[in-house]
């Protein structure tokens, strides 16, 4: 309701500058039109989410605002955890640091694990995609491994590495590699025969074929895989850190749960969601740039 009310109000406001336009010189008219269009975009893109968020907060407040509610209401979260919200980068001691620092620690792990997964996934995917037999033989295996949840890998990797840091990275690696690998393989499978013919006539070697034909041609597929992969990696880090400890954001949630600091958990959830969103957009944006180059 309120959504349509806002847009119709801004439409009501439009006629007046249009009436002035013939009297003025063209320039200010064009400028104001541009400004109006910008304002319109702002209204269209930001007002609806803000209104929806406000409504959700209100529902949340009403649902859990009673005394004795199991979860904290927004007001309680603000009262008890405002320090976490306002200053992400404080340092009061080795275990008492801002959520920004914790997020960065987690991001570093994700960065290492995801980079490894990208490199290995693209390489192996390229090889698998080149061979119809490898594709037929390995695809079902990959499809099964793909569905194993991140946490199920943790005991095995702990047993193998006997240390939490490499285990967490391995869990990220093994969770995010499958979509990258499978998508790369499909992308390579779909390289048009024409491009392969060109490469053959030129006698490109494997290395040149990989960089000059495969990567550009399969880039849209690869970036779809990377985008799914980064999402999964971010899902996995929280789960892995809950069990392996350290200073990451995942462990923070686990720690807060153990010491009954529910408002802190709520704030951490927002951090995780925001960072995951930003990561997804970054990979999507890079993919967009690469695809436009193609």
């Amino acid at each position, binding site marked *: 309701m309120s959504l349509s009310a806002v847009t119709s109000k801004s439409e009501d406001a439009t006629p007046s500058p249009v009436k002035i336009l013939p009297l003025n010189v063209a320039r200010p008219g064009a400028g104001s039109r541009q400004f109006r269009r910008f304002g319109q975009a702002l209204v269209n893109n930001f007002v609806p989410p803000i209104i929806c968020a406000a409504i959700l907060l209100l529902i949340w407040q009403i649902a859990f605002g009673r005394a004795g509610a199991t979860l904290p209401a927004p007001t309680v979260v603000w009262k008890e955890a405002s320090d976490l919200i306002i200053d992400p980068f404080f340092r009061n001691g080795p275990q008492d640091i801002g959520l920004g620092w914790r997020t960065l620690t987690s991001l570093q792990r994700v960065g290492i694990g995801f980079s490894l997964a990208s490199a290995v996934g693209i390489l192996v995917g390229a090889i698998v995609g080149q061979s119809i037999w490898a594709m037929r033989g390995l695809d079902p295996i990959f499809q099964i491994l793909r569905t194993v949840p991140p946490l199920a890998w943790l005991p095995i990797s702990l047993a193998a590495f006997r240390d939490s840091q490499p285990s967490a990275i391995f869990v990220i690696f093994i969770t995010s590699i499958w979509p990258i690998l499978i998508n790369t393989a499909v992308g390579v499978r779909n390289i048009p025969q*024409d*491009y392969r*013919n*060109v490469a*053959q*006539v*030129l*006698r*490109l070697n494997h290395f*040149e074929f990989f960089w*000059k*034909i495969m990567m*550009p*041609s399969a880039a849209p597929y690869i970036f779809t895989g990377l985008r799914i992969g980064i999402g999964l990696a971010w899902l996995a880090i929280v789960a892995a850190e809950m069990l392996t400890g350290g200073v990451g954001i995942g462990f923070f949630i686990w720690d807060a749960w153990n010491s009954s600091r529910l408002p802190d958990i709520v704030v951490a959830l927002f951090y995780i969601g925001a960072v995951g969103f930003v990561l997804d957009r970054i990979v999507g944006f890079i993919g967009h740039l690469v695809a436009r*180059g*193609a």
Partner: protein
Amino acid sequence: MSAYLKLDHICKTFRRGSVENDVLRDINLTIEKGEIVSMIGHSGCGKSTLLNLIAGLTKVTSGAVLLEDREVNAPGPERAVVFQNHSLLPWLTVYENVALAVNKVFGAQKSRGERKDWIEHNLDLVQMTHAKDRRPSEISGGMKQRVGIARALAMEPKILLLDEPFGALDALTRAHLQDSVMQIHATLKNTMIMITHDVDEAVLLSDRIVMMTNGPSATIGDVALVKLERPRHRLELVSDRDYIAAREAVLKFLYERHRFVEAA
């Protein structure tokens, strides 16, 4: 006497599972250095397949392709192909498409500057210098074919293989490109094998016209000699007796084959 290029009893059968498709049967042909040979035949008879066999992109089922008495069974830049659908890489500009070939083929022999000059020289040959920084999606069909020709020429191939290079073009652009090809041949004296559907084009450009029978199991039905002096000018040829004779021979062959198929 040993020929420059020799097609020796070539057969080609495509197999998919138990389904066999005999496309070419017993193809014999010798081509001299510097010759332009056209291949003409009804759609689907196997012209592209034969060209791919010469290029080495497809393997012969039996028989052999011999270039200077050496069997060829893999593709290589000495047999450059101008593909039926241009096959430019869409993520590279016109210049980069040619550069990919030049850098690969002459990476060792020529310096960076020489390669740049060579790329630009070949783009100039097909009059594409003005659009060298555009991508294939940003140029017309005729321009794409020209870039494809420049890319193939830039490899300095022993044999240039052209698969209906002007098939999808309007008559004017076509005539223009045919003139370019004749000019290039006059300067470089390169050997060319060209597939075409156009009888006039075949007669205008080639020294010999290879006429293929209808598939399945197509083979060479007849070879027409075109005894016309070069340089050739299309307007003067219209009333030339040799031109008319060659044209008639090809048309007769195609027409009678076609009739034959309808009767069968």
